[in-house]
């Protein structure tokens, strides 16, 4: 029954996220013919400076449907928005921010079990938020005359979850420390943005960034998922999740 309360507590954030991310995946997929026309022009007309070279690079990658899905949907839209919903779910996942918290604590269940059920429910929802929009791509691709490998959709979905779980866990941990909802959200989003800026500015940091795992560039270019990054960030996420559980176990209500 704890599963039920966790689902009832989170379902609207999850369903709104699912609707938005699925809508974006569908819109991106169906807009490919239009996008092709736009970037074809950019490739021809662009001068030789840095921004133009980047546009040309994007246009070249987007010349294939597989490349377009990666550069437009996986690397940008889905990764960024997934993190926002992960933070929203995590930041509202602590005891102190829910109605019925004292009632839950009066039931004969340990705080650890309540936290575990809650986190498992939200991580399952985040898994769906990562996989479901990606799985819409192979389903919708034939509508615009293309095909998309199911394996690619699954790998990108899993990489988004593996790399992005740290943001969920961080916001959950912060939510066990702060009593309001806003500080966990703002701090975690700030960490995500600043971390991404740092790895963009300092190339040497890029391999250690969760964004690198989420974007799945190594899989796109070599066909090999970023196993090392996936493992590292899953371990870090598990450690932060454990810190959140411990913080809940020792705090006063």
């Amino acid at each position, binding site marked *: 029954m704890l599963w039920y309360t966790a689902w009832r507590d989170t379902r609207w954030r999850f369903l709104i996220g699912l609707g938005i991310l699925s809508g974006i995946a569908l819109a991106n997929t169906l807009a490919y013919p239009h996008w092709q026309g736009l970037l074809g022009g950019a490739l021809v007309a662009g001068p030789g400076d840095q921004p133009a070279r980047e546009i040309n690079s994007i246009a070249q990658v987007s010349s294939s449907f597989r490349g377009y899905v990666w550069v437009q949907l996986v690397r940008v839209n889905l990764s960024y928005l997934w993190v926002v919903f992960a933070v929203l779910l995590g930041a509202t996942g602590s005891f102190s921010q829910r109605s019925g918290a004292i009632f839950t604590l009066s*039931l004969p269940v340990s705080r650890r079990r309540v936290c575990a059920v809650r986190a498992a429910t939200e991580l399952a929802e985040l898994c769906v938020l990562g996989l479901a929009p990606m799985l819409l791509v192979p389903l919708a691709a034939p509508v615009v005359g293309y095909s998309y490998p199911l394996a690619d959709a699954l790998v990108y979905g899993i990489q988004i979850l593996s790399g992005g779980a740290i943001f969920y866990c961080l916001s959950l941990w912060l939510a066990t420390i702060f009593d309001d909802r806003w500080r966990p959200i703002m701090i975690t989003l700030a960490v995500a943005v600043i971390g991404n800026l740092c790895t963009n500015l300092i190339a040497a940091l890029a391999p250690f960034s969760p964004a690198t795992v989420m974007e799945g560039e190594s899989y796109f270019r070599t066909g090999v998922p970023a196993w090392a990054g996936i493992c590292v960030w899953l371990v870090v996420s598990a450690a932060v999740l454990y810190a959140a559980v411990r913080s809940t*176990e020792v705090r006063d*209500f």
Partner: protein
Amino acid sequence: MAESSIIETVGLKKQYKNVTALDGLGLTVPAGSIYGLLGRNGAGKTTAIKILMGMVRPTAGRASIFGLAASQSESSVAIRKRTGFVSDERDLYDFMTVAQLIAFTASFFPHWRADMAKRYVRSFDLPESRTVKALSRGARTKLALLLAFCRGAELLILDEATTGLDPVAAEEVLQALVGHVASEGATVFFSSHQIGEIEQIADRVAIIDRGRTALEGALDDLRESYRRIELVFDGDAPAVQFRSPGAARVERKGRMLTVLASTGGEQIIEEARSLGAVSAEAWPVTLKELFLEIVLGKG
């Protein structure tokens, strides 16, 4: 812990940054009693109850229920299996209907009394299909009581259960509590700042002040043993410290000394006469007077 005690706290302390919520609280709640915890707002009642329920960790001291340590995670779960709790906030799941919340709670308690739950739904007039959020404060309190009663608990802990209720609803809640205890035989530990409630249903009482136990005992014994002794002198009353045992508090005003005596008071009267008191009278003390004497130092 004494064998017949259900709750025991020894030297219980809780410090919140610069605020001392509990400062060495000691309580012993015998099995089968209706035990009232009386104190002003901020005296430490809710903190004490939250420590007993494992929601707050003590800074020092010991709290146990059924002989199990309240601050240890595993024993706290075991305690909660045998304890019904109503919080002062009536904090329930707002999104559930009454029927859903009853079914949800029942799933945690193997000895859930479904027949009793149906009976209380009827007698409390609870609308099963209405969400908790839409319930009045009185109905919410009754639902919280139902959820505490029907789990087959040996101990009921209620924190300011009637606060915010109109007199009729408060009386219904108290009657339900007394009726349940009479039929099921549970021990009740309840906090209140309503002296009338404590006098109405408790057989034992503790008065706590600034996080400490100021007074504890059977209500009848307290009423029996405490006396207000009014001593009148010819001139100004002397500033005196009584050698006789039981002089809990002495107040001096003009020709009169008022002594709160915790044990009869005959010896105090004799001592006062030897000091020149021309008149000495002993009066019984109500719980309200006792509370005010102890907490505020005035009757």
